[in-house]
């Protein structure tokens, strides 16, 4: 997400599940949908069955997705950028890009400042002590008119496209093979398939998930694909797009509602400490167009922000108090899971509420998380299931070694009901908000998460009201207008997210005409206002619940064009648009690129098609308004300016634990701006002691650490194992089903060995390199066989932009061993 927004303007799956069936080429890389999204994978099957689509899988492992692919190529974990920059080089040097699209709809023609450079693995402005860039030079040349300079002829060597060509020139097929271990012939064959979509006739979809995210350069992995799809003209068209497959039914929803600690719902920014006043905050949010006439939709930021504040604080938010700006916390640093665990570990965190997160199992470096939890004064676990986190203080021998007597943490378990035992909405990967109904009552004393949170809030509020405190205002003034304050209904909350009209809104032309009545639901985010007369808890959701009813309950299977556009099924943000940037499915004059890929087109008076245009519906093509309306440029970005911390172009950096040096720039081996806590530097392993590359993943039989408590899932995949390439197993005398000990610089686990042809021994820098795969899922609580936490092994470093831990690439050693104490064997 942290790369899609800087590229396209919004951080979400650009197309949607049903649309996958329209693809001609499906590139699965950084994900394993057959395994992790088997139900969504049906659309891949549809594309193959009805569209003669080719499925390409690039993955360190020959996965279940690979099992049904037309073409598979292996690569070393953590080298996706080298691979994709190689593909980009291929299509650029062989002139396979969709030139007309690139010129019209990307910033290819924009001229970049002279000061911007890339040398020896670093972009301009690096400060080694801060491990950060000063990103001021990563910018366009701005003309006297205040607009960015462009050269439509692309003659200027400082044009983005020319800089990009120079940047990727190093990634020859030979270099790709050397770094990734992907055989050159397979790499080139994949390049040909990808290149076959660089025209308006065919399209490629990219399906990825956490295989790209969970790296120290995760955002840049995705960024590569975003750029590639732009070069091919595959954005905004049916069967195209960069499609993040979300691993939970509602991950998109939680992201939309302010997942990151620096964000508010609807991707508004939570102010930082540097923004002490409302004016400070708004100053950086003006988003003036960078090209003439562009939409630059974020110019409306204030309308959304004020409406949000009104939803939060109601009458307490006034123009006079800057809409209660002071009520918002101001962040000093992002608090991602690694930072929180590190803070616990440092003894600087008193209490923790773990809601629906089994942090002991799910955090990288389990040993550190375990020590951290033991330093808390109190821990509240809100979960439908018994979790290891709630039981962290129990000694389970080598599965969880802890001296229980010394743990002083008070653990409080609040049983939540499961999703089927409450009503509410899911927002799926395709941004479709769908209502779900309650199917049964929760077990025992369980309550819905909503009820639990409300219970905590109402009690705190009463305490603050009674006892006061340093600054009780945000809590006692929080808008809480629910029929039953202790148990708000999901219906009420969804209405609140949509937003209400607070005062009658009159037609400026005719003051007698009331456009929106006070007390009604806001029909769409276009109606939100910065004057405090509207509310919206999450502006992008506005329109999901209107006076016409709860749109998320719609279940029409009408698909008039057969393109999988079910306009009356649920509600898709924004504004019920199924494919984002869909204006780009037509050329600059508004004509579809091809009849095969016809989607949104100009009919002479308006933009029409099966979907809601992502564009002014009557804006004429001649107006030259770009299709990427969120960006001030109006076009998408091949060069992201300063919007990403680690560079406007992606660059291959080795994982923090790598078996080889970075052959492109030895001195800058891994991501130079990825955050590493001081203590953790010494906990990175080197190839001399840990010679094998390891990666972790989910299995289709299980869902994270949840289903191991469920008998059927436990039957289908009962016990932790590691997958070893045959050559490694032979070297070590390990047979199928033997016990192995796998160790990293941070700890060791024991598990069964699955010896397989599906894990490769790759030739990296000329040397054979074994790749070991370890699924997650097992622990010391549940119905499945007791097992070690796989995250005992994983490194404590995250992505430079969003700090997602590097679960996918690290170093281990493998030895044959015997069963762990207390583990029965066959």
């Amino acid at each position, binding site marked *: 997400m942290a790369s899609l927004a800087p590229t396209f303007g919004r951080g979400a799956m650009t197309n949607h599940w049903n649309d996958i069936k329209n693809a001609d080429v499906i590139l699965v890389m950084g994900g394993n949908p*057959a*395994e992790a999204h*088997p*139900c969504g*994978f*049906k659309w*891949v*099957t549809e594309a*193959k*069955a009805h569209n*003669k689509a080719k499925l390409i899988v690039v993955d360190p492992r*020959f996965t*279940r*997705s*690979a*099992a*049904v692919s*037309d073409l*598979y190529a292996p690569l070393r974990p953590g080298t996706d950028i080298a691979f994709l920059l190689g593909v980009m080089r291929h299509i650029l040097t062989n002139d396979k890009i969709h030139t007309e699209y690139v010129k019209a709809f990307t910033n290819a023609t924009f001229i970049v400042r002279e000061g911007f450079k890339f040398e020896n693995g670093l972009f301009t402005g690096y400060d080694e002590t801060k491990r950060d860039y000063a990103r001021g030079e990563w910018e366009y040349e701005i003309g006297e008119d205040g607009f960015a300079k462009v050269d439509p002829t692309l003659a200027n060597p400082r044009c983005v496209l020319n800089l990009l060509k120079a940047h990727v020139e190093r990634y020859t097929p030979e270099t790709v093979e050397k770094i990734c271990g992907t055989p050159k012939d397979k790499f080139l064959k994949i390049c040909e398939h990808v290149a076959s979509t660089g025209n308006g006739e065919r399209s490629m979809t990219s399906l990825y998930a956490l295989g790209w995210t969970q790296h120290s350069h995760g955002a840049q992995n995705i960024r590569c694909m975003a750029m590639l799809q732009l070069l091919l003209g595959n954005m905004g068209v049916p069967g195209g797009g960069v499609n993040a497959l979300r691993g939970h039914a509602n991950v998109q929803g939680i992201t939309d509602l302010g997942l990151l600690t620096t964000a508010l719902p609807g991707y508004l920014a939570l102010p930082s400490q540097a923004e002490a006043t409302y004016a400070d905050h708004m100053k950086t949010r003006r988003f003036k167009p960078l090209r003439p006439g562009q939409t630059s939709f974020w110019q409306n930021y204030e309308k959304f922000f004020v409406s949000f504040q009104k939803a939060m604080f109601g009458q307490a938010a006034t123009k006079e108090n800057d809409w209660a700006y002071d009520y918002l916390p101001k962040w000093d640093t992002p608090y991602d899971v690694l930072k929180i665990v590190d803070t616990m570990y440092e003894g600087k965190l008193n209490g923790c509420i773990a809601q629906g997160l089994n942090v002991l199992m799910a955090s990288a470096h389990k040993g550190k998380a375990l020590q951290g939890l033991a330093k808390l004064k109190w821990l509240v676990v809100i979960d439908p299931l018994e979790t290891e986190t709630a039981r962290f203080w129990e000694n389970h021998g080598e599965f969880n070694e802890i001296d229980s007597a010394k743990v002083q943490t008070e653990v409080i378990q609040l049983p939540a009901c499961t999703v089927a035992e409450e009503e509410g909405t899911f927002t799926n990967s395709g941004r479709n908000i769908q209502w779900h109904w309650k199917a049964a009552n929760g077990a025992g004393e369980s309550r819905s998460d909503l009820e639990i949170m409300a219970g905590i809030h109402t009690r705190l509020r009463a305490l603050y009201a009674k006892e006061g405190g340093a600054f009780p205002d945000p809590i006692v003034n929080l808008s809480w207008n629910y029929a039953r304050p202790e148990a708000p209904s999901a219906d009420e909350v969804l209405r609140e997210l949509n937003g209400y009209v607070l005062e009658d809104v009159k037609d400026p032309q005719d003051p007698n005409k009331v456009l929106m009545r006070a007390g009604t639901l806001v029909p769409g985010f276009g109606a939100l206002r910065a004057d405090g007369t509207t509310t919206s808890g999450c502006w992008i959701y506005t329109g999901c619940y209107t006076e016409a009813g709860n749109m998320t309950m719609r279940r029409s299977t009408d698909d008039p064009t057969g393109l999988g556009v079910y306009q009356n099924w649920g509600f898709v943000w924004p504004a019920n648009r199924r494919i984002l940037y869909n204006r780009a499915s037509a050329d600059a004059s508004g004509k579809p690129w091809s009849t095969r890929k016809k989607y949104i087109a100009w009919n002479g008076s308006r933009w029409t098609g099966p979907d809601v245009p992502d564009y002014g519906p009557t804006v004429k093509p001649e107006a030259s308004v770009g299709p990427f309306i969120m960006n001030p440029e109006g076009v998408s970005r091949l060069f992201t300016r300063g919007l990403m911390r680690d560079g406007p172009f992606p660059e291959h950096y080795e994982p923090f634990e790598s078996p080889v040096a970075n052959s492109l720039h030895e001195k800058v081996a891994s991501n130079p701006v990825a955050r590493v806590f001081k203590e953790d530097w010494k906990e990175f392993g080197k190839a001399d002691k840990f010679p094998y590359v390891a990666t972790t993943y989910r299995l*289709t*039989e299980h869902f994270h650490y949840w289903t191991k408590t469920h*008998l*059927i*899932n*436990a*039957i*289908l*995949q*009962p*016990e*932790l*194992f590691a997958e070893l390439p045959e050559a490694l197993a032979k070297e070590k005398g390990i*047979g*199928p*089903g*033997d016990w192995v000990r796998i160790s990293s610089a941070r700890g060791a686990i024991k598990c*069964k*060995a*699955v*010896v*397989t*042809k*599906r894990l490769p021994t790759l030739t990296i820098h000329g040397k054979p390199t074994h790749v070991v795969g370890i699924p997650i899922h097992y622990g010391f609580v549940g*119905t*499945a*066989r007791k097992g070690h936490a796989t995250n005992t092994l994983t490194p404590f470093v995250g992505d430079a932009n969003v700090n997602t831990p590097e679960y996918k690439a690290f170093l281990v050693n493998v030895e044959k061993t015997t069963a762990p104490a207390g583990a029965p*064997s*066959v």
Partner: protein
Amino acid sequence: MATLQSLDIKRRSATTEPPPHVRGNAIEVAKLIDVSKCIGCKACQAACLEWNDLREEVGYNTGVYDNPADLSPATWTLMRFTEFDNKGNLEWLIRKDGCMHCEDPGCLKACPAPGAIVQYQNGIVDFVSENCIGCGYCVKGCPFNIPRISQADNKAYKCTLCSDRVAVGQAPACAKACPTQAIYFGSKDDMIAHAEERIVDLKERGYANAGLYDPKGVGGTHVMYVLHHADQPELYAGLPNEPRISRLVELWKGGTKPLALAGIGLAAVVGFFHYIVKGPNEVTEEDDERADQINR
């Protein structure tokens, strides 16, 4: 699917009575398992456990993805995973194993218990547990090694093709659960027609030997596979090439039975007539006297 409903019985184990056949227009059903579309997610296994209310014990990892390790009284279907190195291109062949519902079922042929195994007009071969005596002859009769005898109740178990669901117009639970439509269910004719389309697609994708597995040796099956390598079914975790009921089983359950009974009857009859014709072999007075002479 109402036309697939008939539960008239076509064949019944260990029965000499002729089956009813006035209603002879039942449509034969089939399940088509498209191995080339299967992702091995085991949703079919989970659905089978759920629908049939089966719960296996939690097992162990034995070094492979196949879990449970084998078919059992509580595991009627099982994904079997095979890694196949096809001239440098790895293939992961995943076959859903289970009863094939043969048109000429070896289990039914071998079964000595009347009505313990039946075949419906629609082709489904079903075990009727209350008639099962647990002898294990079905295991010996099956060319695909499918039935399993329970240690708990000494009854044989296997996939029923969800005959209960089919009887009310529903597809089997596994087909219903399959996310990639690798499992199709319908009339056998429709399934063959669909398979032909799939085979054309597979051939276009370079699988020159793609084909349908509907082995004639057992009269065809009501569970069929689309295979990428139909010329080598053994690749798929030992799917038999040209399976048929073992000649030993045919010998045992075929001519032997009437001939043996006839032979036994004949022996008794011969003895009877010998007696009638020759009379008893009795000790004569002379014998007694001679015996007396020495036996004193």
